[in-house]
Each structure stands twice: as structure tokens, then as C-alpha cells.
């Protein structure tokens, strides 16, 4: 019946018990991937650097979700919940970026790569930096330092 089906299936799925070796393998893979991403990150690859970093991060994240969080054994709703939330994150970011990329150029923040306007000078007085922030605080900072 209704109750039995879903919960029983779940219990059945979760019954599997693996040796600790599997966790060790995943751990080592995660560490290796971290080193790889640091290495490629330091090369400052021009165009696909971000993409590569995100792909590596996604692989790591998938490993954590599937094996540490046992998503590989979960079925049904648990997977759906996780999948849907990831999909919504992607769509939220996607739609928002689409807006910035296709907007009337002057409507983007000045100084950005999608705007033809110069960045705003925050206060023309000499004590403030061009991108905002107070020289005064800086002086205080130096005093503390010295």
C-alpha cells in the first residue's frame, strides 16, 4: 500500500553497507582533484579557466553527494529534491546573467565590461579612491601598522 511502498523501497535501498575502502578512495580522489584545480587555477587560463574550475568543482561535488551523502543509494524523492534544487540554482543564475549580457549597454553598471560609461568617481575630493573607499581609514590603518 501507499505507505509501505515508498518507505519500504527506501529502507531496502539504504540497507547496503560498504566497506570503508570506498570512502578512502573517494577522499583520495577529492584531494587529487583539489590539487589539480589549484594547479590549473594558477596557470590563469584565459578563456576556459572558470569553466575548467567549475567542471572540477562539479565533479567533486557530485562525488561528495553520491558517495559521502549516499545519494547513489537513494532513490525517488531524495534524488529529485537534490536535482531540482541544483536545477533551480542554475536557472536563477542563467536567467540573471542573460539579462546583463543582453541589456541596453548604458543600463549596466558603469565601468563594467558591458557598459560604455566610465566608472563613477566616488566623491571628487582627493582623499577618496577612484572606486570608493576612504583614504582616511587607510591612514588610520597605516598608523596602526606602524
Amino acid at each position, binding site marked *: *500500500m*501507499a*505507505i*509501505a511502498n*515508498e*518507505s519500504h523501497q527506501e529502507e531496502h535501498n539504504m540497507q547496503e553497507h560498504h566497506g570503508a575502502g570506498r570512502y578512502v578512495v573517494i577522499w583520495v580522489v577529492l584531494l587529487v582533484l583539489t590539487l589539480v584545480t589549484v594547479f590549473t587555477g594558477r596557470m590563469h587560463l584565459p578563456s576556459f579557466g572558470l569553466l575548467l574550475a567549475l567542471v572540477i568543482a562539479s565533479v567533486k561535488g557530485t562525488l561528495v553527494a553520491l558517495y559521502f551523502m549516499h545519494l547513489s543509494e537513494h532513490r525517488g*524523492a531524495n534524488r529529485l529534491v537534490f536535482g*531540482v*534544487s541544483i536545477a*533551480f540554482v542554475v*536557472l*536563477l543564475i542563467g*536567467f*540573471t546573467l*542573460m*539579462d*546583463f*549580457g*543582453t*541589456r*541596453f549597454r548604458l*543600463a*549596466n*553598471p*558603469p*565601468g*563594467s565590461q558591458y557598459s560604455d560609461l566610465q*566608472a*563613477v568617481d*566616488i566623491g571628487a575630493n582627493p582623499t577618496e579612491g577612484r*572606486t*570608493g573607499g576612504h583614504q582616511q581609514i587607510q591612514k588610520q590603518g597605516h598608523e596602526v601598522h606602524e
Partner: protein
Amino acid sequence: MTPSSSIAAPGAVPGHEAHDDHGHHPSYLTDGTTVKSWLLTVDHKRIGIMYMVWVLLFFLVGGIFALLIRIELLTPGPTIMDAMTYNRVFTLHGVVMIFLFMIPAIPSIFGNFLLPLMLGAKDVAFPRLNLLSLYVYLAGAGFALWGMLNGGLDTGWTFYTPYSAHTTTTVAPVLFGAFIIGFSSILTGMNFIVTTHTMRAPGITWFKMPLMVWALYATSCIQVLATPVIGLLLLLVTAENLFSLGMFDVARGGDPVLFQHLFWFYSHPAVYIMVLPAFGVMSEIVSAFSRKNIFGYRAVAYSSLGIAFVGFFAWGHHMFVSGQSTFNAGVFGVLTMLVGVFTAIKVFNWVGTVYKGAVEFSTPFAYFCGFLFFTVFGGMTGIAVGTVSLDVPWHDTYFVVAHFHFIMVGATIMAFLAALHYWFPKMFGKMYHEGWGLVSAAFIILGFNATFIPQFLVGNAGMPRRYYEYPERFQALNVASTAGASLLAFGFIIIAVYLTYALIYGERVDNPWHSKGYEWLTMSPPPTHNFIGPQPTYPEEPHFYVDPKKAEGEVSDV
């Protein structure tokens, strides 16, 4: 009359035996009478009732703010308050009505009360979490009220930056209160989803769940997925206001339109948090009062999920003239139309349900008629303002105000009152006076129309929203609107009077509607664990009114 008198399958009648030994099984209302037994209860029904008390209280507060706004707008110039007060009043009207009334109204009161009853469960999955959500809600409300009493804020409920970051009014406590209330909403949503997945009684498959459950399920999905985003956003704006964190600081390259994207990512789906449960309530009521299975059950169920999903990706239609790109306007424009189609499916199927039915025109059904009207016109004006070029003149005028009051207030209030009348006997085992019910329904439906139809027109004429003073040519329609509002208020007063009377002196009833919804299969008011004895099973689908003699041959699976 017993609720079971017309039920064919004996297995589905837990209330039947319950009726005999009534004395041994006190209802949830009498099982424990101390204050503590209410405050620390984990019974979903008592939590629902406590929510009702508070939510109605906040409805009163929001309603008073609404009347103040209407009185102020009687004349083009200042009437009873200054501009600063007016700006605070309309902000608080929005904040109270949306965060403290509309969002918890149907899910937290009727959802809490009915979800386990409709699933044949003894309680929701996490009863203590449920109680916690009530107190989190009250804590958030307390914060928000404290902020209001300490000056209030004047940003409008949309909290748009950079105004909200720079205004000198007390923004932070109210925003933080709304943030806390978000947790309450999330907890309720999680609880409902888990309950629906795990607690269904034997016999209740996914496609035999009452449509109210489908609607609550879809609502909960939105609550769980959307609320965290506004939570974060409210924190960022609070930080911006208090510490100039600078996330949306225009001078440093921040973008106020990004704020609007994140804001409407929650606040557009939030409209469906308010209106989807209303759709669920109405699916129950149209079934019960025309004694028919719902026409196109699966279409209605799927369209709830469809609205929940597509509704997430229509948020940009609040931003057609905000500097958003034309391309995005097109994408969001198409998605908006899809949401409209899902609602249209529901409307057609509700009307279809009456076909070959047996309609009894009592108070909840009167509200159903009002609901149908507000949903059709609120929905269609929604499609109209979602039509990209038409939104250009209408955006942020009274047309939009009237539109969203029609769909998310009109439809939801109709459903709220219909639910209150339909389930009043279920909750308290008492019956109200039917005649007064119909009279007040007439007052409210007429009053609502008289309030907001002039606002559609004054919006057409070009009156922007959030105006303290307005050019004289708008006055006639504003006066009409205020007159309508007083009619509306009068209707609510009648309801408050006769329902309070019924609560004390009402006639004892069990199932006055002869309804065959699952929740009516137990006694009214239900006992603490909803039914007595072993777990009942549910062989028939809800609202099955076919003559048992004919049933054999005619019905196959849908």
C-alpha cells in the same frame, strides 16, 4: 446523521464506531484544557487553530491599515495623515498582509488542520517542528511589530534598493522579522512534503489524494525552494542598511536590478504560495457541493505542479520597464503566458465539475462563485499586464494594484472564507447561521468588486501606486473605491459576529454537507489522533458520489 451514512465501503468508516463511544474519546478541543496543553501541544489541529487566532489578528491589523489608506485617498490632498505616515501605512499594510496573513493563511491554518486528516495520518511527519514553526512565526511577527512600533519603515513591501538602503526609517527589524518568518514558512513546507510522501494511509495513492493535498504539496515545494533566496536577500539588505555592506551599492558598481531579480525570484512564486492553496480549497468545495468527482482530476493535479514549476521562471515580468533587457522581457513574457494556461485549465475543470452534478447553493459555494469571478478576471488581467507592451503603461499603476488584489487577495480571501465556512463544522463541530453566511458573502463579494474595479479604471487613467496625493481627475474613482472598502469591512464584521456566536451557541453537527472528502470520514471535531482504533484504509477515491448500485459497472480507473 453520521458522516458514514452514505459511504459504501465499510472499511473507510473509522468515524462509524467512533460515534457510539463518543464519551470515551474526547475531541482534540477537549483533550486537555489547560493553557499549557494548548501552548505546548504537538497536535496539528491545535497548532492549526492557534495559527488561526494569530493570523486573523494580523489580518485585522492589515485591514485597519487598508482602511486608513482608503480614507487618506478620499481627497486629492492630505486627508487624515501626513505623507510620511501614509508611506509607512501602505508599507505596513503590504508587509502585514503578505508575510503575516496571506502566506500562512491557508497552508498554516487549513493545511495544518487538514493535511493529516486528508491523508489518514495521525499527525504531520514532524509534530514538534510544526509547533516550532508557529513560534518562529510569532517571533518573526514580534520583531516586525516591534520595528513598526519603533517608527515603521517606508520602503513599500518590495524593499527596493537603493531606497531601502538609505532611508532613515527603521528598516532592519522589519526585514529581520520577515527573514525569521521565512523559516516558519520553510518548516511548514518541509513538514507537508515529508508528510505527503511518507504518511499516506493504505489506499491513498498519489492519484487518490484529495486535490487540496496536491495544492498544498505544490505550495510547499515553492516555499522550500524560494524562501531561502529572499531570506538571504533580506539579510543582505539589512546589512546594506545597517553597515553599508555594498552588495547593491550603485556607486561601487552594484546593480539595483540584480536586487530586483533576486527579490522577484521569491516574490513571484510567493504569489502562488498564496493562491495555490486557494485553488486546492476550491477543488474540494466544488466537488463537495456539486456532489461530483472533480472533472479532469489529473489535469488539475498536474497543473498545480505546473504552476509551481513554471511560476518560478516568470519573475522577470515584474521588471519589464526596470532596465532589464528586451530579450529577457521576451523570455519571461512567454513563460508568463504558460502559467496563465495552467490556471485556465483549472478554471475549465472546476466549471466542468458541476456538469451533471447536484449543486447546493450554500455559503461556501457562494464563495466559490465569487472565487471563480476573481480568478477569471484577476487571471486575465494578469495575462494582460504580462503582455509585454501593455505592461509599459500599466506597470506600477493602480491597474496592477487592482490586478494583484483580485487574484491573490480576492481569490485567496474567497477561498479562505469558503474554507472557514466549509470546515467550521469539522473544526468545532458547530454550525453557523446559513442565512447570515449568504448575506455576508454577498457583502464581501460586492464590496470587493466595488473596491477594486474602480482601481482598475483609475489605473487605466494613469494613477501610479503609492501616491499620497494625486491629481484631481482621479478623485471620483478613488471615492468609489473607498466606498466599496467600507462595504467590504462591513461584510467582515458580520462574519466575525455570527461565527463567534456559532462557536458558542451553534447547533451540534457532524457532517452537515454530507461530504465524502477523506477528512469527513472521521468524527467532527476529530479526536486527538484523528481516528480511533486501527489505521483505516481508503478503498475509494475522495468525493466519490456514485450510486453504489451503479458503481460496479460504470467506474473503471481514471
